[in-house]
Every structure is written in structure tokens, then in C-alpha cells.
């Protein structure tokens, strides 16, 4: 299985490992030009953080945990979420462009009114989450050994058992 989305050179990325972010200030230092870009977060924990409408570009979140946080109206572009647990997240009206979700778990999260464009999901589950009014365009799910394109976004959650 190969990701079709291109990611910039690894060398220019900032790598943050094993760090806990407990408020906006802790994470705010990594925002440049009001955007969070080109950062690899590995084994990180994000808690009680609220950002509204900020661009998050070319970021990788691996083995990370998100708890009780809000990235409402944020624009995620070319981001990868791998082995992440996302609990009680407010992702309402968030936009995901060219993003990949690998082995992620969304729990009690609100994604109502969010947009997914050119995104790929594999081994990702949504439990007790609000997936109303989601718009998907060219979104693929890895099912039974192949990529299945989701065309009807009205039953988006049916694809994630």
C-alpha cells in the first residue's frame, strides 16, 4: 500500500518526540506565520488545546494521542495521522486536503460539517462520533485489500465499521 500524496523532503521537517502539549501556549511556539507546518510529532500527547481556523500543513502525527481538543475550522493540508487516538475532539468544519489516516481511532469526536478532499483512510475507526454533514471528494478507504472510493458522503460513517 503506497501513499499517493507527496510529502516534502524529510530533512526540512522539525521532529518533536515524546512531548506533551497541555495548552495552546505550549504548541503556539511552533506556529509560524499563523500556521503549523512541516513538523513530525512522534509519541506526543495533545490535551485541552483549542485552535480555530489555522492552517496545518505537511505535518505528521505518529503514535500520538489527542484528548479533549479543538481544531475547529482548521485547514489540514497534506498531513498524515498514523497510530493516533483522537478522543473528544472538536473538528467541526475542519478541512482535510490530501491527508492520510492510518490505523487511527476517533472516539466521541465531533466532525460535523468537515470536508475531506483527496484523503485516504486505512484501518481507521470512528466510535460515538458525529459525522453529520461531512462532504467528501475523492476519498478512498482501504477495504479488503483494495482502495474503495467513497462517492456517497451521506453514509460516510458506514464505511468505517
Amino acid at each position, binding site marked *: 500500500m503506497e501513499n499517493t500524496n507527496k510529502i516534502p523532503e524529510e530533512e526540512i521537517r522539525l521532529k518533536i518526540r515524546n512531548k506533551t502539549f497541555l495548552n495552546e501556549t505550549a504548541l503556539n511556539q511552533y506556529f509560524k506565520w499563523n*500556521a503549523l507546518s512541516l513538523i513530525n510529532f512522534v509519541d506526543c500527547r495533545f490535551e485541552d488545546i483549542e485552535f480555530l*481556523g489555522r492552517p496545518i500543513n505537511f505535518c505528521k502525527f505518529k503514535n500520538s494521542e489527542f484528548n479533549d481538543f479543538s481544531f475547529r475550522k482548521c485547514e489540514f*493540508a497534506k498531513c498524515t495521522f498514523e497510530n493516533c487516538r483522537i478522543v473528544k475532539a472538536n473538528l467541526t468544519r475542519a478541512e482535510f486536503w490530501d491527508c492520510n489516516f492510518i490505523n487511527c481511532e476517533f472516539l466521541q469526536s465531533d466532525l460535523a460539517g468537515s470536508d475531506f478532499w483527496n484523503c485516504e483512510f486505512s484501518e481507521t475507526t470512528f466510535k460515538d462520533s458525529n459525522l453529520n*454533514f461531512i462532504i467528501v471528494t475523492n476519498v478512498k478507504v482501504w477495504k479488503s485489500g483494495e482502495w474503495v472510493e467513497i462517492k456517497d458522503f451521506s453514509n460516510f460513517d458506514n464505511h468505517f465499521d
Partner: protein
Amino acid sequence: MTKKNIGYPYTYGDKLTPEMARNNRKQTVSYSVLIPSIWWHNLEFGEPIQSYSSFSNEPKTVIVRGVETSRVNSISRGGDLGKSGPGPRAKADALKNARKTGGGSIFVQGFTPQRQYGSRPINKPLSCRNNVKINQEQFNGNQNPGGSSSSMETMSKHLSQEYKEYQQKFNSPPVSKRFDTKNYDREKFKELAKDPKANKEVFEKKTCDEARTAIQAEMEGIVNNPQRIEKPICKSVDLDFKVDGPGLYTHMDVKHPVGSEILRKQDRGHTLQEMATKMGKRIVEQKERFCGLEQGPESSENVLHIVDLAYVPSHEKKIVKEYCLKGAGSSEGIKFVNDNDKYKFFNKESNGKYK
């Protein structure tokens, strides 16, 4: 010829004449009466006589309204920087005048007002302080219902540190310079700058931007009475504002595209054209999204999208507009604000020239 010693200082050993004694008495009286009176005066009016606004970056020329002429004329401050006693120039003048006139208190002479009200100052005062006073009512302004004489730009910066930093970093002219923002309701702005769906009640850059656009659209007659959608309706109908027309419009959503320079700096990874096209496509989809819900729009015709080009430089506005409409496929239900070249965009890379 006898030498007459009536000047000051007298030489030690001079014979005390009645004239000299009379001068000494005069001088003692002058010191004992006038110096305490000067100190009393300073204590009484020691407070700065001008109060500034709570917004430190508000231009002083804007907030200066009334001139308290009586006090200004009654006090000669000697041109010092910030204190109420005599400054170096006042003291030098006093010394100089004392030598010229001879006798009397040098201090008193130095504080005698030498300029009449209304006359042109010959010696420009050293002080940068204006001898004027404004009060809170004057600052708030009484021409606006919400009571604001400060621009929406100032208000936004005051509410949101994030907004302030963003404006400063991008080195653009204040958004208020691109359109008139004086005549607005401050309380309404504050209400509109809150996101009803956010977990915490904070003012963020995005919500301040949305409020600015909503107010501007109202001022330009594009929409009537924009209001945030209250809880719990906003939980389902997640559009930015509800409006009272004109026409069929009941709801409104706001978009803020940026210029290519900002896209590059933020590492967005797409071009100006891509951004604008995607925005247009998204607008069409969003119009349909919340239709038919309780207290939501009945159809897509009820949803107006305002695309605010405030963050797009002049030379790129046309491109963004064109590609946005191209993505949407139609200009139906889409209005642009700040889409003209009236206000020039300034950036660092243009070497101090407006683009």
C-alpha cells in the same frame, strides 16, 4: 568717584546701606511667598492633564478633541519632559533674565508667562506632551450607537493577540485603511467576534476577521443585521451568521482567501489559483449543506457567501476572484468585499513601494 554697590551679590565687607537692606527684604519676601505657592501649584496640578486611550496604538491626533485653554494658559510648564517643575530651558531662561533685569527672584522671573495665548511660539517647547485633556465620553465618541471612535482594526487587535501578531507579521497596512471602519457598533462587533460553537469563549483571529467582514458587508448594504447563530441551533446549522436579507438571504458564510506570499510563507503547498478554485467549489457545497434543518436555510438560495479579499494584494485580487467564480461555476449567492484597488497592499518585498 564713589563706587555704588547696589547690585547682587554684594561684596563681603560692603557697608550696608538702606537701599541694600531694602533689596534684601524684597528678595526674602519674594522667596518666602512665591516658592511655596509654586510648589502648591505643582502639587495641585501634578497629575498629567491629558488622558490617553486604553488602546496604545491609537493615534493621538484622533483622540485629542478638546483643548482646556484656561488651564493651559494658567500653567507655564517650562518645556520639560513629563514633570511639572521647571525644566533645563526654563531654568536657563530664568538665570538669563535675572542677570538682565537684576534683582528679584530668579525663580519667579523664570516662571512668568512670556507668551500670550494665540501667539505663535517663538521657542518651540521641548515637551512632546499636548496640553490638552480628553475625557472618556469624548474618546468613546457619541456619534455611534455602540460608542466607538476606534477602528475595527484597533478593536480586533485589542480583542485578539493572534490577530494583532498576524497583522504585524504580514506587514500589510491596517485593514481599517482599506475601508472605513469608524462608524460601527462596538458592542455588536464584540458579539460577532465570538464563535458560539467554540469550547472556550475567546476572540480569535478568524472570528475577528469574520466579524469585520460581517460588519463591513452590513455597512456596504450587502446584508442586513448579521448575527451569530445562537446555541443550540449552531450545533446543527453551522454557518457563520444569520441575516435578515436582503431578498432571500437568511444565512451568511464568510471566506478569507490570502495572497500568494502568505500561501508561500505558510507552506500551504498550493497555488493561488488552486486555493481560489477549491474555495469556489467548497462554497457551492456549503450552500446545500445545512438546508432543511430546523431554523436553517430552506434552500441554497438563502445562503450568501461573502469572500473578503482583504488579505489578497491588489495585483492578485482579480485572479482570486476569477478562479473562485470558476470553481463555483456561477456568481449566484457570492459577493466580494475589498475587491477593488482603492487600497493598495504593501509588503516588505516591494522595497517600500505600494504594489
